[in-house]
């Protein structure tokens, strides 16, 4: 592959070693019991899986985004929810801190987060809609040197486990046509007035918590403002392609995980002395089409990450990965279940877990349709630009 180097291959091998030896034996247990993978998260932090693309001065690995993608692909093959836990802390929230944090905030939050010693959650979504920032109700008001936050945030990943929540609220009047008037605050878990509901019981991403955060007159000092007050939404716009791309890499791994299981099953399950693969053209064609979709996704993922590393990636590639990745993972996982027959729908084989987890990626972080809508807007913009 054009993107593979000796060092990247070695990092892939080491990640695989970690996932096979430490994550695989417990992955399905976490899915069944809905248990957050704290031990694995800490181990991933020790091994350096959290800070891959961030500078060494921030406690990161100082590697590139392609290396990051390769690692997340490996994680997705074995335990998607571990990738969601890692990505929500290090990319969704950590990415914002890395780009907009003050030197003190980097030292206090980012350095331990890159080692897995501190866990972040990023909280944007409210009942008004995940992509509907302009009706956001949550707000913060200045009070001397402090801010007072009042908000309710829904479906927040890593809720209840995180040490620090990065919460986006309104801090000023809306200025139509601009992203002004939103601010990110660091809220530490024990801050008075801040509460976390019990986690939702979901169809997938079991073992990762999604819960409601309530901020009732939560007082934080002005040092807890990320970057500049009023610029929060701008930071989110810059950071979100990375979060979406992480989903692309993770879902590529998920598709591969489901495909490998289905391929093995189709070769080993015998009927009338022949494997499913050799018996039925319909099975062979399923696997051929699954493979084709996976390789097409791989091409898109690594092209996007390569452009990202070169600093020339058009931002819409993030949305493209957020759309294409979950679609391929869901399609491949659904076909894999079909190839398994009855065992495919039983908890425990693990093949259906890929499908449940893939489906959640159509919504978590940004709905597929909202991404399509944004992509269409880019297309319109480019059309008029080039006209």
């Amino acid at each position, binding site marked *: 592959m054009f993107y593979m180097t000796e*060092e990247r291959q*070695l*990092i892939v091998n080491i990640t695989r070693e970690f996932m096979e*030896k*430490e994550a695989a034996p417990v992955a399905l247990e976490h899915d069944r019991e809905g248990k957050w993978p704290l031990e694995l998260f800490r181990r991933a932090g020790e*091994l350096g899986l959290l800070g891959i693309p961030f500078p060494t001065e921030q406690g990161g690995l100082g590697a590139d985004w392609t290396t990051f993608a390769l690692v997340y692909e490996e994680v997705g093959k074995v335990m998607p929810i571990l990738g969601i836990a890692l990505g929500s802390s290090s990319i969704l929230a950590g990415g914002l801190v890395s780009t907009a944090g003050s030197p003190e905030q980097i030292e206090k939050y980012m350095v331990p987060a890159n080692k897995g010693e501190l866990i972040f959650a990023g909280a944007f979504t409210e009942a008004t809609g995940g992509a509907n920032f302009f009706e956001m109700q949550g707000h913060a008001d200045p009070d001397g040197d402090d801010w007072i936050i009042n908000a309710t945030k829904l479906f927040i990943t890593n809720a209840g486990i995180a040490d620090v929540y990065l919460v986006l609220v309104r801090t000023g009047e809306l200025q139509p046509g601009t992203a002004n008037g939103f601010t990110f605050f660091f809220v530490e878990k024990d801050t008075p007035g801040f509460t976390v509901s019990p986690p939702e019981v979901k169809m997938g991403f079991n073992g990762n918590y999604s819960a409601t955060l309530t901020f009732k007159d939560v007082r934080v000092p002005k040092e807890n403002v990320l970057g500049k007050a009023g610029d929060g939404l701008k930071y989110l716009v810059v950071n979100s392609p990375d979060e979406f791309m992480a989903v692309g890499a993770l879902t590529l791994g998920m598709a591969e995980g489901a495909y490998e299981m289905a391929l093995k099953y189709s070769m080993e399950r015998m009927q009338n002395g022949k494997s499913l693969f050799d018996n039925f053209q319909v099975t062979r064609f399923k696997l051929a089409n699954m493979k084709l979709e996976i390789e097409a996704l791989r091409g898109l993922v690594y092209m996007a990450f390569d452009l990202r590393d070169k600093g020339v990636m058009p931002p819409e590639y993030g949305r493209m990965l957020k759309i294409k990745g979950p679609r391929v993972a869901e399609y491949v996982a659904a076909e894999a279940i079909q190839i398994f027959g009855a065992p495919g729908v039983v908890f425990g084989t693990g093949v259906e877990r890929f499908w449940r987890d893939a489906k959640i990626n159509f919504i978590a972080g940004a709905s597929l349709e909202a991404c399509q809508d944004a992509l269409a807007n880019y297309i319109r913009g480019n059309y008029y630009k080039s006209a």
Partner: protein
Amino acid sequence: MQNTVACYKWVADEADIRVHPDLSVDLSRAAGRISEYDKHAIELAVQLAGNSGGQAVGLTFGAEPVRKSLKDALSRGLDEALWIKAPEQATVDAVVTARALAAGVKSLDGVGVIVCAEGSGDSYARQTAPRLAALLGLPVVTSVCEATFVDGVLRATRRLEDSLETVAVALPVVVAVLPQINRPAIPGLKAVMAAGRKPVTEKTAEELGVDLAPKSEITSMKGFAQARKNVLVESVADLVAALKKEGIV
């Protein structure tokens, strides 16, 4: 100060080996990896070098593909690596390997302990350590499940059929370790990235005057498949009777 050497082998990844229905073995698509057993040897060498204040040196013998192993081995805590390069297409058996490794050890200074795994991930012939020791004129301790320095000698526990034997042996010494000896650490990504900056010495087998004539030859390799009898039984009693007939219970 004593340096410690870890001998390791680059083998075909077992997960990629395919056995065809005619039992022929297909290695053509197998990627290489450091033999899992040898990761235990590397771990012990790193630990012993840490205890004695010496360097831990990785030593490997093989043709060009082995180059891929160097950073991997170095990321596991070794301080440097020595690669004895075999000519392409060379037929290598345990004798040739032991000669090459012995030449490699001789080219290093201040070696105290040479650690091998009991066997390799591919053929598990268990010949390397004893042959290497014989060529170097050193004592060898095999089946080692525990090893530490005590007052300048190596104290090693050997796991035998139904007993544990502890020996104290003066350095230099060759040891062959069992997987039970330790749990090799998975290296962190920082160590992986730093591995590229560690020193690697590359020497050809000819340069070291290694005799490359093998003494044995593999004449055939076949996959092993358990033949199944596919007996259907009607009841538990029938099952027990069938197992008795086979002499299993």
